[in-house]
């Protein structure tokens, strides 16, 4: 079952506590979830229900207090840091809720950053791919601008292009369209869905936008640390 090829991402009875002592909160209370390759999933729910917390666990940026996570059939929930780091670089593209760009670097450099680490492409190929990705989020003209000289929505679109850089099998996006106008939100969403359809990537996104949630293949509503 763990080797089922169609399932890119699976988690089982995930628990996560946050905070210390009296402030300790049981944020995730046994979340189970599956994402198939080639499908787009929307996680929806009220603010504070634990969506970001779940996404960090799935993106191997955090470790669960209980439960298991499989990435492409490999158990990852409590594996070594080096294994998890390698998996992040190769299999996972993560878009943070608060679009984290490296502001000292240009849009191009930000997009090339994961490629340079992975080192599978030649420098020229990297530049070509970065240009193409920035073109697909409508920022090809601003590709040489520093992060500090981009608007919030522009930064977010660069962050999305960066998440796609290494052609990860799993894309995890925490409110990727949160800061965007309707037109750009549509561009970003279409880009993510086309990747799922054409390349067979699994896309999991958190959204508060009902239209977008509606257009996803699956919608998973969440409340108080559990899917309902």
């Amino acid at each position, binding site marked *: 079952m763990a080797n089922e090829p169609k399932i890119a991402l699976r988690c089982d009875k995930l628990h996560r506590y*946050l905070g210390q002592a009296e402030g300790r909160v049981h944020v995730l209370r046994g979340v189970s979830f599956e994402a198939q390759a080639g499908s787009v999933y929307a996680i929806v729910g009220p603010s504070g229900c634990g969506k970001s917390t779940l996404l*960090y666990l799935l*993106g191997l*940026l*955090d*470790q669960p207090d209980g439960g298991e996570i499989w990435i492409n059939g490999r158990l990852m929930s409590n594996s070594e*840091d*080096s294994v998890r*780091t*390698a998996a*992040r*670089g*190769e299999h996972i593209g*993560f878009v*943070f809720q608060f679009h*984290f*760009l*490296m502001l*000292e*670097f240009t849009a191009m450099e930000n997009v090339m*950053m*994961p490629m*340079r*680490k*992975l080192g599978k492409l030649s420098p020229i190929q990297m530049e070509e791919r970065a240009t193409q990705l920035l073109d697909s989020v409508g920022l090809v003209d601003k590709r040489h601008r520093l992060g500090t000289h981009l608007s919030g929505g522009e930064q977010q679109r660069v962050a999305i292009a*960066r998440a796609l850089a*290494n052609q990860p099998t799993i894309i995890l996006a925490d409110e990727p369209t949160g800061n965007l106008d309707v037109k750009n939100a549509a561009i970003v969403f279409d880009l993510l869905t086309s990747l799922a359809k054409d390349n067979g990537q699994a896309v999991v996104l958190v959204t508060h936008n009902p239209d977008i949630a509606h257009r996803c293949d699956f919608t998973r509503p969440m409340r108080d640390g559990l899917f309902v």
Partner: protein
Amino acid sequence: MSQNFRIAFRFLTAKKRAMVMSLSCIILGVGLFIVTQAATSGFQEFFIKVILGTNGAILIQDKLQATMRSIEVSGYNSGVEIRQKEGQKYIEGIEYPALLTAGVKSFHNVKGVSAVLRGTVVMRSSFREQSAQAYGIVIEDHLSVSDLASQIVQGSLEDFKVQEGGALIGRVIADKLQLDPGDSFEIENKGEIHHFKVSGIYQTGVGDIDSVRVYIQMDQARALFKKPTGATYLQVSLFDRNRALEDAAEMSTSLAHKADAWQEREKSWLGVFRAFRVATAITVSVFTLIAGLAMFNTLAMIVLEKTKEIAILRSMGYTRQDISRIFLWQAVIVLAIGSAIGCGIGALITYGISQYPLPITGIFTTHKFLVQWSKWHYLEAVVTAVLMVMAASLIPSRRAARLEPGDIIRGTAQ
């Protein structure tokens, strides 16, 4: 150029203030180190140069055999030693200088040997008289064990070589007796008067030498002191001056003569210089420590300000090692630039203080602050900076590597 280096460089140039802060720590540390080294070793180095240039690295004097007993007469340093050989007769000085010279020359480290015949005399010009020490030398030999050639300030050495009865007199004697090159004067020994002519005036800068020594040719000295053979002592110069103690000890035993190395002879002054150097070394160490702490603080701040970027990099697959390397690279870049500028500034300040007027006379003579130019000072300064930066950057960079991306993003990283 590695990606980690590229990131480090960009981080650094984007944080101008932190960069300037840590750069100045290194520049100050390296610069101060160089300047204090140059300044403290300058005087000592000059002093040693003067000692070696006047009295040589090793002096070999007569030594009493176990079966002999000696009585020194006419006071210290007279060179007139009377010895009694099992109640037979008194012999003074080195008996067979040529033989002993050959023995000394068999040591590999020996550069030159000069036999000197010395005695106390009265020097008299038409103006006044004074007591002096006459040194009979073979000039060619003596040039190989001293800096006499470069100490001539008036007249010429060539003249001394060829002129019958020529003499080289100290600057202070020349002033006192009002003698110039070409002037005649008398030397009186035991009531007998000999005539000499000033070939040249030398200046070592050492008061005790310039005011009493008069160099004359060996055959003249033999006639003056009525010593057809023998010598008072042998002056020896070495290729490696730092081996003088070992060589002297070996010469003492193998040649059965008393051999004194320069370190032993000038122990008290060298001790003063050492104390001086230790005192400044302590000051510099304290400063280096403070600079190191400031550097540590700055690097730790850089890490704190960059936690967000650490989380981003980690999320993209950059390993803990990459993160610590990025911060180590920053330290290395600052170190390289800081060391280069620090060496430049150190050299500049060293030059500056070498121009500072500071007249000293007595143990040596100088008009300016003395500094030593040595590449080793620069090397030592850079090595110290490397150690300091390594110590200061290790903990912050490791801390950066340990940060969990999840914790950073939630803002709960410590």
